[in-house]
């Protein structure tokens, strides 16, 4: 068996369309398809059972003997039975089709049915009308029908949803056995449910199959799991230790006020007469081509630019250059950039990297409090990195490092969170991971977010102010 979809487009009801699907399933492979709600994962799997109207692309090797168990298939069967009853014009109270009759319908192996009815402990239900069953029970009936039809390809959409623990274990064991004979494709929402026999993972995003990862590719597989974790679980941003620096700020003053800023190096003017006011609660996106001075603006705000002392800069209640130290400024800021990541070449533990955010240091030079360590561990759990607290930061993948630095920046709930091209240098999956995390942070509303990007298509939900700067290099005469 080999199924191959190439550049396929499928139309579904209500204008939903699967787009540019490229997918290949071979004998011996078992897939899990995941993705956020509405990403089209159920639709994708249903196409293998003939659902959806293919409007473009080529598909080869579609198997005839397919069985699909899904919420939609379950609803369809219930609907069919309901209609039957309604259509019944006899004067007696309709009993409807019994479970026994439903299970005997079509081309099924009776001994498999018998075996499974026992395994699912459904004996006592056989004579009941199908319509009288609970959702969980109809789901079991559907599973039995599907398994007993002895398909070559079994499609299971959220098969474990709503099953009691015993049944779940039984079903999982059954699938393991079955996996030696046929291919199984499942839709699953939770990554901790992925059975061991699954060989491949597919990730749906916005109606397309964005990533296919073989389980043997450990790094990619783990990244995908992390993404699922961030996308699909209901996560809370961890609390911060003691009081956030926010309490030191006067709410009536802007966070940042840059007035008539000029920056020049040697003979080159990088910024001229630049003005910007950022108020608390205003999320901003700063856009501009390379060399337009984005980084200079940011480092004037953070105090890392030496010319911040020769410009008119008001930040967090300080007019710069009046005896304040940069640590007094930095306590209000969380900061992530590629440059920071290059700087952060230390062999310290993941936990310490997050804790270092409380001290605005690269590396940790103070003893962490228990509370800080605890918060760091909560962040690791949020990132799907629990249990890795003592691993060494410089051994992490580039994408994981970026996630960790974002957590480091957020750990103190800074009044201003600056994300300078946070997706730069990341592959798509890691970009998705970072964006998912940023959206969570924006939604939590704890910090004013300043997001910098040189192309404006990477937008983030929740950001509604845009500042575009043009390249302005000119020579000073």
């Amino acid at each position, binding site marked *: 068996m080999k199924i191959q979809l190439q550049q396929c487009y499928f139309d579904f009801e209500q204008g939903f369309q699967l787009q540019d699907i490229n997918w290949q399933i071979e004998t011996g492979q078992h897939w899990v398809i995941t993705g956020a709600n509405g990403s089209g994962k159920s639709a994708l799997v249903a196409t293998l059972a003939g659902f959806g109207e293919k409007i473009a692309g080529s598909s080869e090797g579609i198997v005839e003997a397919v069985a699909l168990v899904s919420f939609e298939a379950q609803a369809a069967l219930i609907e069919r039975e309901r209609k039957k009853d309604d259509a019944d014009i006899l004067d007696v109270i309709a009993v409807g089709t019994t479970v026994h009759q439903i299970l005997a319908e079509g081309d099924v192996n009776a001994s498999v049915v018998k075996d499974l009815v026992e395994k699912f402990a459904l004996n006592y239900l056989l004579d009941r009308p199908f319509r009288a069953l609970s959702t969980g029970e109809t789901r079991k009936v559907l599973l039995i029908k599907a398994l007993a039809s002895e398909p070559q390809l079994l499609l299971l959409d959220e098969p474990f949803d709503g099953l009691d623990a015993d049944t779940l274990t039984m079903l999982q064991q059954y699938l393991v056995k079955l996996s030696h004979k046929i291919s199984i494709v499942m839709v699953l929402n939770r990554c901790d449910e992925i059975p061991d026999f699954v060989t491949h993972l597919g990730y749906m995003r916005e109606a397309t199959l964005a990533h296919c990862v073989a389980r043997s590719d450990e790094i990619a597989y783990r990244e995908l799991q992390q993404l699922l974790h961030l996308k699909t679980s209901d996560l809370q941003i961890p609390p911060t230790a003691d009081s956030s620096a926010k309490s030191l700020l006067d709410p009536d003053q802007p966070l940042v006020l840059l007035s008539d800023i000029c920056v020049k190096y040697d003979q080159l003017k990088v910024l001229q007469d630049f003005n910007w006011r950022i108020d608390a609660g205003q999320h901003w996106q700063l856009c501009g081509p390379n060399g337009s001075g984005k980084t200079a603006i940011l480092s004037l705000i953070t105090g890392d630019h030496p010319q911040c002392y020769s410009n008119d800069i008001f930040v967090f209640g300080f007019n710069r250059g009046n005896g304040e130290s940069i640590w007094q400024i930095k306590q209000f800021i969380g900061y992530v950039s590629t440059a920071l990541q290059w700087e952060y070449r230390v062999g310290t533990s993941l936990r310490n990297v997050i804790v*270092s955010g409380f001290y605005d240091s690269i590396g940790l030079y103070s003893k962490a409090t228990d509370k800080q360590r605890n918060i760091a561990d909560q962040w690791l759990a949020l990132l799907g990195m629990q249990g890795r607290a003592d691993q060494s930061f410089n051994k992490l993948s580039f994408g994981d490092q970026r996630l960790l630095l974002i957590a480091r920046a957020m750990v103190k709930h800074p009044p201003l969170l600056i994300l300078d091209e946070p997706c730069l240098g990341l592959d798509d999956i890691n970009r998705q991971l970072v964006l998912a995390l940023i959206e969570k942070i924006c939604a939590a509303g704890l910090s004013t977010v300043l997001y910098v990007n040189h192309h404006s298509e990477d937008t983030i939900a929740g950001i509604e102010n845009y500042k575009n700067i043009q390249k302005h290099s000119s020579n000073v005469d």
Partner: protein
Amino acid sequence: MSNNYFNTLALRDQLEQLGKCRFMHLNEFTEGVDALKGKKIVVIGCGAQGLNQGLNLRDSGLDVSYTLRQAAIDEKRQSWKNASENGFTVGTYQELIPTADVVLNLTPDKQHTAVVTEIMPMMKKDACLSYSHGFNVVEEGMQIRQDLTVIMVAPKCPGSEVRAEYVRGFGVPTLIAVHEDNDPQGQGLALAKAYAVGTGGHKAGVLMSSFIAEVKSDLMGEQTILCGMLQTGSILCFDKMVEKGIDVGYASKLVQYGWEVVTEALKYGGVTNMLDRLSNPDKIKAFDLAEELKDIMRPLYNKHQDDIMDGTFSSGMMADWAEDDVKLLGWRAETAETAFERTPAGEMEISEQEFFDHGILMVAMVKAGVELAFETMTAAGIIADSAYYESLHETPLIANTIARKKLYEMNATISDTAEYGCYLYNHACLPLLQDFMKNIDTDVIGKGTVNDDNGVDNARLIEVNTALRTHPVERIGGILRGHMSDMKAII
């Protein structure tokens, strides 16, 4: 020319000054930069130390500006660019010195007499004059106006590190001192402490010492193990490998990056840890080589220390200054022409462990140099803490510069004084090691031992391990690294 200050002191005072050294605790710095708050700090010179210290002090909330000699301003030299592009006020001596509460003299040591003589009359009454190295006061006997407070804050690192560590939220180990002849209001210590806080030094550890102890130990360290030994070792190891037919690109790479890799191990666990990176048979080999090297080089180390103590070294160098650095410049040119310097490192990969396994001789040279320098300094009355910083602690920092751009980079980064002393050492050490090198083969430099058998004699191994672990530099190192790692997780 003035007198050597050290030589004017009575023996008992000399010993007292040399023995002055105390590791300060973090809680001695709770007043932060307060003693300097609102004071006008004017830095003379904007080079490696001047620029980077100034950036840190300003970022700590202090008022910093720069004064440069007229020519540097008129010609918009690099020092002028350094200061003005970083948004500092720059002015002439006349403009800024009279306004200064604290003047930081961060010009090259050989200019100190001229510079201090010129600016001293312009300084405010009761102001403070600070140095980052005590050469001028100790070796040249500079006499400073009696109302002025004279202090020293000497970061034990190149200027670039001073800045980089501060930006990370840390600092570099720093030595502070007050010139007791010039502390009329007794404020010297408070000012020096605040200055150390302003540069971030307090986070990494501050040694409270004396001008004399700083000069005599700093000179000794830089001439011998830090720069001299690395230069001599580079040339000898490279030439030996080439003589034995090892690929020149490989030889060049092994030496250029090898110092950095093997001395990195020092930071974590001293000489012991560096040798522990070798297999047992190789460790014993390195130990034996180092013992041999120490026997051969001990008289040279003693001579350097003696010349530093009695002023022979500084008067020799000052004579060269008087001759427009003819010796220094000649040696510098000679270094640029060495085969090691002229052979680019090859493209091959060398793993971290391979640098140890193929560089047993380099490990032995570092061990011998560190221990000899430490032993010689402490025998001369310098306190162990200070001797540790001037030998073992700084070795990896200097090794980094060789990794960047070989000997050229090292000699460009260190002060002229260090460079002069380094060449002096190199000239004496190369011939001294000639016979020793005759017996050296590629098993200890270039190829590594080809032992299938990792067996060693138990008794001998225990002997070697004990000797390593009980060396005095390891004892003090354990304590000082402990202090640092309390605060510093990453080293």
